[in-house]
């Protein structure tokens, strides 16, 4: 049985090699998209996918001048499913690269499979500290952001605004605690309160009351998705909206603004991008996205679009021969593409080195609740884990 297996296997390889060299032009480059497309957090994965497809449509079904085929898979926020669909894309669908990856657990699981199969990953959101540190791999490029500078930007802003006492709040799980500890590291003033709420808690009025009682100069919180909406709305309803400035991560991103509406006006968040950033690529991206999808693009969409542009630039550099791994790796690392964020380059751990801005929620020209950049305290920020990565 084994011998027959080997012969068939050998035949298969020969056929594949023949195919790629001869029909380079006709065969579309197959790209696998893996992300959370079902369940409560599906909006985030959908934004990454929609932005990528927008770019492909603008290129008439081509990226970097070569036809591409995007194969989409839902990892359902389950690591075992992420492993399964990634292996299916690589082995069954024969994709040459994986992009997308929304949440950390599925991103880590999927990247492991890709690295084991020597397939490139261009992650447009999910990543982990290990992937930026010792676990860095030449096959993994992340175009989103690393938590440390993402939080530090708001701490720096708080210092510049002269806030002396700040109250902190976050859900009682790993990401929540690490966000608050990063903030405490970079903030020079005193911590008035520090609350951790159980994961399942939807009602924060008790904690908000205690914050009102201790009257801090400002408040910093981290509440993702639905929890963020709850918190911001309850903060506004408690009448603190215009008394104590609120800085929030995860709560004020694009996907939540439609649901929050006016409740979010005046609040602050930090990000690598905002819809009103003044560069040609961004203006064209925002305009096209709103025309096609009738909604304001979010940071997830911007990252999805940049991942697409990175892939396109690399394909153009290697003239479509993505199977030449060294050349394609160099092309990706060069990051020679007009990022919607303006400046973009890769650090040694293939995580971005980029500016971090302070964003305020305002009413834009068209009367919609939108984000605008008000300051850029952190320029060309390198994440602290880059040093632990052995790559150059």
């Amino acid at each position, binding site marked *: 049985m084994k011998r027959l297996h080997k012969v068939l296997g050998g035949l298969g390889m020969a056929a594949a090699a023949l195919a790629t060299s001869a029909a380079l032009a006709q065969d579309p480059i197959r790209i696998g998209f893996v992300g959370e497309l079902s369940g409560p957090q599906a909006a985030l994965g959908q934004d990454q996918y929609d932005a990528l497809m927008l770019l492909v449509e603008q290129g008439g079904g081509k990226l970097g001048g070569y036809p591409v085929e995007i194969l989409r898979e839902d990892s359902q926020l389950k690591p075992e499913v992420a492993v399964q669909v990634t292996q299916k894309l690589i082995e069954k669908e024969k994709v040459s690269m994986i992009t997308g990856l929304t949440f950390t657990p599925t991103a880590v699981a999927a990247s492991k499979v890709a690295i084991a199969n020597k397939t490139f990953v261009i992650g447009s959101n999910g990543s982990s500290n290990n992937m930026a540190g010792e676990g860095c791999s030449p096959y993994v490029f992340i175009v989103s952001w690393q938590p440390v500078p993402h939080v530090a930007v708001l701490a720096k802003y708080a210092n510049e605004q002269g806030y002396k006492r700040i109250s902190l709040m976050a859900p009682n799980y790993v990401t929540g605690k690490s966000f608050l500890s990063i903030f405490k590291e970079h903030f020079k003033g005193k911590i008035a309160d520090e609350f951790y709420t159980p994961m399942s808690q939807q009602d924060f009025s008790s904690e908000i009351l205690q914050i*009102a009682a201790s009257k801090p100069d400002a408040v910093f919180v981290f509440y993702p998705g639905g929890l963020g909406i709850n918190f911001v709305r309850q903060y506004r*309803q408690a009448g603190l909206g215009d008394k104590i400035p609120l800085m929030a991560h995860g709560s004020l991103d694009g996907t939540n603004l439609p*649901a929050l509406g006016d409740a979010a006006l005046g609040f602050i968040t930090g990000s690598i991008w905002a819809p009103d950033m003044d560069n040609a690529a961004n203006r064209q991206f925002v305009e096209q996205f709103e025309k096609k999808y009738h909604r304001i693009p979010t940071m997830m969409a911007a990252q999805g679009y940049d991942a697409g542009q990175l892939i396109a630039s690399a394909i153009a550099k290697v003239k479509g021969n993505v199977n030449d791994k060294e050349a394609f790796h160099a092309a990706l690392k060069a990051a020679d593409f007009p990022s919607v964020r303006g400046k973009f380059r890769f650090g040694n751990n293939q995580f971005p080195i980029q500016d971090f801005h302070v964003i305020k929620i305002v009413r834009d020209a068209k009367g919609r609740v939108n984000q605008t950049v008000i300051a850029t305290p952190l320029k060309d920020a390198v994440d602290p884990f880059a040093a632990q990565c052995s790559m150059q």
Partner: protein
Amino acid sequence: MSLSLVILQLMNGLQFGVLLFLLSAGLTLVLGIMNFVNLMHGSLFMLGAYFSAAVLGATGSFAQAIAAGVLGTLAVGLILERLVFRKLYARDHMYQVLATIGLILFFNEAVRVIWGSGSISTAVPEFLRGAVAIFGLPYPVYRFAIIVAGLLVGLGLYLLIHRTRVGILIRAGASNAAMIAALGINIRLLNTAVIGLGAALAGLAGLMAAPISSVQSGMGEPILIMTLVVIVTGGIGSVRGAFYGALIVGLVDTTGRVFLPVLLRSFMEPLKAQTLGAAVASVLIYLVMAAVLALKPQGLFPVRHG
């Protein structure tokens, strides 16, 4: 921890308890009378929120939103009773759990198909906006409204159960359903009425919770688990048990989250106290339930089954 803060926290606990009572009252009757485990009760809570949010968004009138929330879930409840539940009353709990899990999966996706994956917004009605100062601290007017409305509905339910003919039937059904069927009461109609009542109350709870929480797919399940804790702790089939159970769980959950960390801080450094406090608080109500069941397997206010 000033006294005024303590009182305000207790009011938050009361508000959450009242919301839980609206959900538990219907579910405990359904379980007590028809011995029917309806895990999709949380989905009715979600539908109430979605219906009212959608109508409020379209028409802007809070009255129409209330009508949509309550009547919408009532309709869904009656249709499901006709199509699915009626066939399962005689079946074992396992099959009821299974069918209602299937319905949870279905409704969580159905709302996403209709209203999209993100959460939708619904604002607090004009006349209930803003906060009122109590003991110098701001307390949202809207939460007052929830407490008052919830207690009024609770009183109405109490009168219905204890002062009307239908109430007698419901209580008799809770203690011995077979007997009242034998007495010639149209048991089928009673079942439908109880399911309808439960669905309407869940819808009301949903629409009241909508403005203060995010209306999104899957919002029903966390509060469903809390509701199940309430009815099992209070005593299955007893509305009185549901009322006291809801208040106990509401208060324990809210005050646990607030006072536990403060308590721990006295003999532990702040950060550890905070994280440990939050961790224990999240499992507190389960510990309470396990303790009650270990001591009184029938719950605190059991219905005497004939």
